[in-house]
């Protein structure tokens, strides 16, 4: 008898999936540290981006204060906070920047680092990344 039969795998899978619905989750915005937390994450994110040779040049002519404020609004809104994003559509913002997968991933890595710097736990990181990942289709133009 072997203990790792397909049935056992299915059981593991079912167990894992049942975990999803077990408890109501806190508001993502609060898990990110609300207004103060999101602002700190965005500040660190911009620092990480400007430090990364793969993408820093894309921000040469960016008004960084405005970028900071708009990104705070956007993360606040998608995470369920009391904000409304007042910036332009993602597609319009990125269509002339010739962004490839490499640069998109560099931004994802910068965001992960910024969240790690602010001691955001993995579960909260994943909740935010999952909400932002679909922007992939509007941002990658190459």
């Amino acid at each position, binding site marked *: 008898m*072997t*203990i*790792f039969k*397909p049935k056992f*795998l299915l059981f*593991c*899978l079912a167990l*894992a*999936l049942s*975990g*999803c619905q077990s408890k109501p989750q806190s508001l993502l915005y609060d898990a990110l540290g609300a207004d103060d937390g999101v602002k700190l994450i965005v500040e660190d994110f911009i620092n990480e981006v400007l430090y990364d040779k*793969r993408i820093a040049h894309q921000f040469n002519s960016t008004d960084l204060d405005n970028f900071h404020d708009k990104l705070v609004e956007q993360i606040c809104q998608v995470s369920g906070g009391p904000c409304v994003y007042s910036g332009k559509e993602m597609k319009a913002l990125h269509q002339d920047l010739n962004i*490839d*997968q*490499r*640069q998109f*991933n*560099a931004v*994802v*890595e910068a965001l*992960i680092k910024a969240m790690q710097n602010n001691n955001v736990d*993995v*579960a*909260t990181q*994943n*909740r935010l*990344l*999952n909400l932002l*990942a679909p922007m*992939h*289709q509007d941002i990658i133009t*190459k």
Partner: protein
Amino acid sequence: MIKKSLICLSLLASFQCAAGSKLLGTAAVNHIEGSAGGGLTPWAVLSGYATDSEWGAATFMSSASVDDYALNAMGFALNYHDKLELSYAKLNFSIDAGLPDIDMDVFGAKYHAFGDVVYGDMPQISIGIQHKKVKDFTVPAAVGASDDAGTDLYISAAKAWLDGPFNRTFVVNLNARMSKANQIGLLGFGSAQDNGYKVSLEAAVALFVTRNLVIGTEYKQKKGHLAGLKEDDWHDVFVAYLVNKSLSITAAYIDLGDIAGASEQRGYYLSLQGAF
């Protein structure tokens, strides 16, 4: 040689800045036959951290030890633009009973046809080919295999859920394989009585406990061609620690079932991978 490889790998670990731009973990590790995957099965992702404008590569060293056999593998894989992976693995299968070792070369190619494992709704779909050749045909011939070489074809689908169960990133991979191999080719290909291709299925699930720690399990259906020598499906349960994009360590408990008349072959697997 092991010492040299360790030095090499630790050098790689310190050069993480040279790594490509795929997200950590999305290059998987290298399965024993060389291509990106878990321990026992290839996955639809490609080895090395190249994205669509980069080159990548990975090298690995793996060792499995079960009750009556040991399997050692080493090899490398190259990744062009996250589109095409070329791999090579050298397998050494040693038998406690004192029979000669079986060495096998595996040349592989995997083409990333469409989809992306992380982004979008479609899974990442890849098709792969593996040409395998056993060096010394003595043992495979003795157990009734008809060929010392064979070619496997497989199609592979992988999908990750960034915010899966327990808010952890969760990956599922499924393969369908066409093969004439007996015990993945270590006991040759086909037999006089049974020489056709057979389709078998493979599945893997993995969960990223943290960005660096992955646990998972794999299942590999196996259909041999040798009369009278039972061949069992393979299973493993693994833990992989991704130090960074350049270095990973994988440990697994493996259950290989019956091999060439020796029953219930279970044991441990350890693999080191360097990538960029």
